C-alpha cells in the first residue's frame, strides 16, 4: 500500500512537472488578475490540477 502511494506520488510529481509551463502561465494569469477573476482562475487551476493528478491511471 505504501509502495502504491509512493508510486502514485512519484507519478503525480512527474505529471505536474509535465505541466510546468502550463502552471507557470496560469500562475502569471492569477498574479495579473485581480478580484474575482484572480480567485476564479486560481480556483479553476487548482481544481483542474487535482483532477488531472487523480485521473492519471484512468487516462493512461
Amino acid at each position, binding site marked *: 500500500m505504501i509502495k502504491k502511494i509512493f508510486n502514485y506520488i512519484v507519478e503525480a510529481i512527474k505529471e505536474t512537472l509535465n505541466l510546468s509551463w502550463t502552471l*507557470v502561465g496560469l*500562475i502569471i494569469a492569477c498574479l495579473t488578475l*485581480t*478580484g474575482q*477573476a484572480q*480567485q*476564479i482562475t486560481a*480556483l479553476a487551476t487548482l481544481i483542474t490540477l487535482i483532477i488531472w493528478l487523480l485521473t492519471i491511471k484512468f487516462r493512461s
Partner: protein
Amino acid sequence: MLNKLLSLCGVMFLIIPYPLALADHVPTQTPYDISIVCDSDGDTTKGNITVTWQESDGFESSPPERYAIAFSNDNFVETNYAVANSTGWETALSYKSYVFTASYRETIFGTTADTFYAKVRADNDTDASYSEWTGVISIDCNYGSTATTTSSTTTSSTTTTSSTTTTTTVPPKPEPKPEPYVEPEPLPPPPEEIIVDIVVEGVNKTYTQADVNDGTIERDQERIDNEAAYGCFMTDAQIDRGDCIIIKEEVIDEEIIIEDKENVEIVIPEDVVEVFDTPEEKKVEIEILEFEEQPIEFEVIEFDLEDVAPKDVVEIPIQDEIIEDIIQDELDETLSIDDKITEDEIQVENNDDKIIQEIVESEEEIELIEVEEAIKEIVKVEEIIELKNQEELNTLSQEEVVIYEEEVKAAIVEYVEDLDQEDQIEVIKEVTDIGITNLDKATKKTKQVVQAVVNEVTKVENVETLTEEQTEVVADILGFEETEDVAIIAEAASKEENIAQAVDEYVERASDNANVENYNLSDVVVEIAVENFIADPISIIQIDFNEITISNISSDMTSSQKEKAQEVVVPVILARIATIGSFIMRKSF
C-alpha cells in the same frame, strides 16, 4: 532545174527578210525617211525649215527617248550644231518633225542664205543606246525664197570624213503627212537642247549642252575613273558617301586628271562659244581627301636613372604606382574627411542631444520646483509639525530619524485629510501637469504629500463625492483611461490587501519607475501580487466563495488591469497550445 529554182527561191525567201530581222533586233533603230522642207509661203512661218523623219516600226529593245537633230551650214565640215526634240518614240512609223525658223538660223549662222544641212539620230539615254545618224539632207531656204532643190547626202554609218557624196536633183519632195507633235520652236532655243559631241571614253553616249551644264559629263567621267580605280561605277559623291566598299590606301591628296579625248566630228568656230562648247580638251580635277585618324606615336626614351638622377633621389615610382598612390591618398583624404565630418556630425548631434536633454531636465526641475512650491502653498505641514532641516537631522540618531519621519508622515496624512477636496484635487492637478513619474527628484515630503492625497481621493466615500472633472484628474494621475476605473479601484482597494497596498505605495513606486513607459496603478498591483505570492504562495488561493459571482466575474477589474492580464494570459495559452501540438506531431512520427 525546177528543183534548183525552187531552192533559190527558198534561199532568197530566207535571205531577204534577214536584214529586216537584223534591223528589228538593233537596240535603237535609225529614223526612217528623213526629209526637209522650207516654208516660203506663210506670213509668220516664211523661211522656216522643217526636218521630218519617220519613227521606227517599234521592233527594238531601246526605243528612242528623244531624237537628236544635227544641223550645219557647211555640211558638217566646220560647223556642227544639234538640237533635240522633247518627245521620243510614240507611234510606229509615224512622222515627227522639227522646225528651224529663219531667225534662229540667222542667229546661229548669221545668215539664212547658206544651205541648211541636217541629220537625225534616235537616242535612248536610259540604256545608253544610240542609233546611227541618218543621211544628211540639205535645203536652201533664204528669207522668202522657196526651196529649189533638196539634196540628199548618203554617208557611211561609221565616219563622216570619208563619205562619198552623190548629188542628184530630185523633184520636190511632197509635203509630209500631218504630224501632231510639231510645235513652233521658241526663239532662241534653249542651249540645253544643243547636242555636243563630247565623248567620254568608256561611255557610249551623246551629250547635250544640258549634260554639260548640269555636270553629267563630269559625273560619267567620274564613274569611269572610279570603276577603273575601285571597281565601282559610281560618282565621287557616291564614293564619298560610302556606297562603294574601298580598301583604303594611304592616299592623302590624289590628283586625277581626266582627259577627254577629242572626238568631234565638226570643228566649232570660236565665235559661237556661248551656244556650243568648244570640243577642247577638258581637264577635270578631282580631289579625294580621306581623313583618317593618324595614330599617335609616342617616342620611347630609355635612360638609366642612375646616370640621370642625383644620389639623393632614391626611387622613382613608375606611373601606375604614382597614380595608385595619388588615388589612395585622395581616397584616404576623402575618407578621413568623411570620417571627420561624420564624427563631427555625431559629436554635434551628441552635443545637441545633451543640450536638449539638459534643457529638458532643467525645465523639468524648474517645473518640479514650481510644483513643490505650489504644493507647499496648499499643504502647510509646518503648521502641524516643526520640520527640521538636514543639519538638525544629522544630529539625530537613526531611530529618532525614523520616528521623526513617521511623525511627519502622520502629520501630512492628517493635514491632507483635513484639506478640502478641491485642494486635494489641486495638488493632484499640479502633479499631473509634470507627470507622477517625474516626482523621482522631488523631496520625500512632497512625495508623502502626494501619496496622502492619492490615498484620500481613492477612498470609496471620497470618490463618490468627486465631480466628473475631478474624477478625470484622479484617473489621470493613476494612469487610467476610464474614469469608472477610479471607483472600481477604490472599491477593490477596500476589499483586497494587494490593491490597497498598491494604492498606498503607488507614488513611491511610480517615481522609482520613472523610465517605464505608461506605468500605472495596474503595474503596481501586479508587482505587489508577485511579491506577496513569492512571500506567501498559499495566499493566491485564499478564495472567498461568497464574493464570487459568475455573471459578474470581471466587474471588479479595472480596464487597465484587464488589458494587463490579457497581455500576459493570451501568449501563455498560445504557447501551451503550440507545445501540445508539437508533442502530438512528435508522437505521430
